[in-house]
């Protein structure tokens, strides 16, 4: 019985890893195709280059090779974890860009996620428990407001008030903890609001479930009911969202990073596309995708930990 379970788990893990690799390959291929089918290139410039010069550039970067050859070369390097040099910032490799940019984005993202989880979950739980009272209304109006102000406007407002008007925080750049406050708030606002609302609505549903009534009937203390039975079950949609939260925060970091001049990886995500910096586009996309898939993988595993009712291995497969 036990052996069987372990075997199933190993099988499941293996299958997941194979599908992740397949999916990554698909992403590389599709991105590669779309990237080369949109107009422009890494050496487009406002002043038209003489043909000789253009040819020299393309020779140097093997852009004259047939696409299929470029594609196979790229895959070959990718297998060796070599993402190539940037076309635009020739002196930097994509590996280096990720290595220096990601830790910054990760710190910023972690700060934002921590803020969003703590504040969002608390606000959601409190709203649900105090449904239709002022705490509920206040939290939900605040959440709604932070939802109707997008990240670029919020960033602008935060910078305007705290750096320009009050002059109590630095406007931008990265390095000190004061510089981390405004971007963290800007980045956390949306996920906080999302988590608060998700948690509230899920908590309300859970509180109406029979097992909560049973728990009440058993005479358990309200604290135990809310924490052990309510929150634990209600947190599931939030956990589903977590995988997305991480990537959402990373994506949102593009806006925040460019407004607050933070040298993270997020700003490369859009800039590389506008510059048609092919290797960076692919490198950053692969990196983010792998990251997203691993996150989802962990989220699925967390499901099992949190909710024993879910089975990873479906009955039909056994």
């Amino acid at each position, binding site marked *: 019985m036990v052996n069987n379970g372990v075997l199933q788990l190993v099988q499941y893990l293996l*299958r997941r890893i194979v*599908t*992740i690799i*397949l*999916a990554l390959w698909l*992403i590389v291929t*599709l*991105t590669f195709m*779309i*990237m080369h*089918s*949109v*107009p422009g290139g890494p050496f487009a410039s406002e002043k038209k280059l003489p043909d000789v010069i253009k040819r020299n550039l393309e020779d140097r970067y093997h852009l004259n090779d047939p696409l299929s050859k470029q594609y196979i070369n790229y895959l070959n390097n990718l297998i060796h974890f070599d993402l190539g040099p940037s076309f635009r910032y020739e002196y930097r490799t994509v590996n280096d860009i990720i290595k220096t940019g990601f830790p910054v984005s990760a710190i910023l993202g972690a700060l934002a996620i921590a803020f969003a989880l703590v504040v969002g979950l608390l606000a959601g739980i409190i709203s649900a428990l105090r449904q239709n009272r002022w705490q509920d209304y206040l939290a*939900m*109006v605040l959440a*709604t*407001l932070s*939802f*109707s*102000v*997008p990240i*670029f*406007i919020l960033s*602008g*407002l935060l910078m*305007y008030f705290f750096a*320009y008007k009050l002059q109590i925080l630095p406007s931008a750049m990265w390095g000190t903890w004061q510089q981390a406050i405004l971007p963290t708030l800007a980045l956390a606002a949306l996920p906080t*609001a*999302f988590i608060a*609302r*998700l948690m509230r*609505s*899920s908590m309300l*549903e859970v509180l*109406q479930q029979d097992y909560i009534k049973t728990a009440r009937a058993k005479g358990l203390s309200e604290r135990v009911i809310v924490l052990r039975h309510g929150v634990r079950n209600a947190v*599931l*949609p939030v*956990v*589903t*969202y977590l*995988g*997305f939260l991480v*990537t959402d925060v990373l994506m949102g970091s593009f806006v925040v990073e460019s407004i607050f001049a933070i040298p993270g990886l997020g700003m490369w*995500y*859009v800039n590389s*596309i*506008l510059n048609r910096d092919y290797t960076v*586009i692919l490198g950053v*996309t692969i990196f983010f*995708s792998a990251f*997203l898939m691993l996150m*989802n993988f962990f989220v699925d595993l967390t*499901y099992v930990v949190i*909710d024993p*009712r*879910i*089975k990873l291995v*479906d009955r*039909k*497969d056994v």
Partner: protein
Amino acid sequence: MSMEISPQMFKRLEHDGQPAEETLCPSVGYRQNVWLRLKQNKLAMTGIIIIVLLALLALVGPHLSAHSYEEQDLLMVNQPPGGSYWFGTDALGRDLFARVWYGARISLTIGLLTSVICMVIGVLYGGISGYLGGRVDEIMMRFVEVIYSIPFLLYVILLMVLLEPGLKSIFIALGIVYWQNMARIVRGQVLVLKEQEYIYAARLLGAGTWRILLRHLIPNTMGPIIVSMTLLVPEAIFTEAFLSFLGLGVSAPMASWGVLASDGIQGLRNYPWQLFFPALFISITMLAFNFVGDGLRDALDPRLRR
């Protein structure tokens, strides 16, 4: 207390051809029920009234002003709100009042339609994926991840080359990004719910896959779905501004709320009303949609049905 059980004690019932489970739950009255309960919810009704008012203003608002939304007066640029220009003017001397209400037409349409489109696709996709489970689920979810992983901006540039700018392109671009979130949320919920007793019961009683999905699983996931839907409205409104910025949006001088707001942020230091008015109405819209969304969620919840 022993008792002999003999076959004679049982009587065989003839199956009437209908799934037995269906007879328990007449579909008539469901919609009326929802409406009745929605009507009792004061906040939800306030939300509906606000939305209707906004829609009315979007229709007549541009005509209330003495100026049209596109008429420029280069001698009256960046005027503060006042007698002739109720909401002030923008950087080209255009009446913000007329522009805000003209923008409402575009943005309300975009917000509403996008969230409906995404809901339909996302719910079906996520529902099927979660319900069928196993390999199908895995393939479907990996597909979502693949689509999600390809940079949005690349699609947009590709679409820009392939399509003419305008509403249709906006819906295609927005549809590509936003259904995936919905699909994942629904799938996560369905994964949980399908293991619950009432689903087993329904299945035992002979309900088919579609029936279980549409009648039992999806209504029970309505809470998170509606939350995501209401949150999608502003996201769509602002993503449209980003699309306009890249050249896929409605063409100027038409301007949506999102575009007005992102223009407004440039004047924040000197002409704050240019941001304030569009932002105010976006927020009001959001509040209203949330009220309605919450009300709908409660009204649709089958467990609350009497």
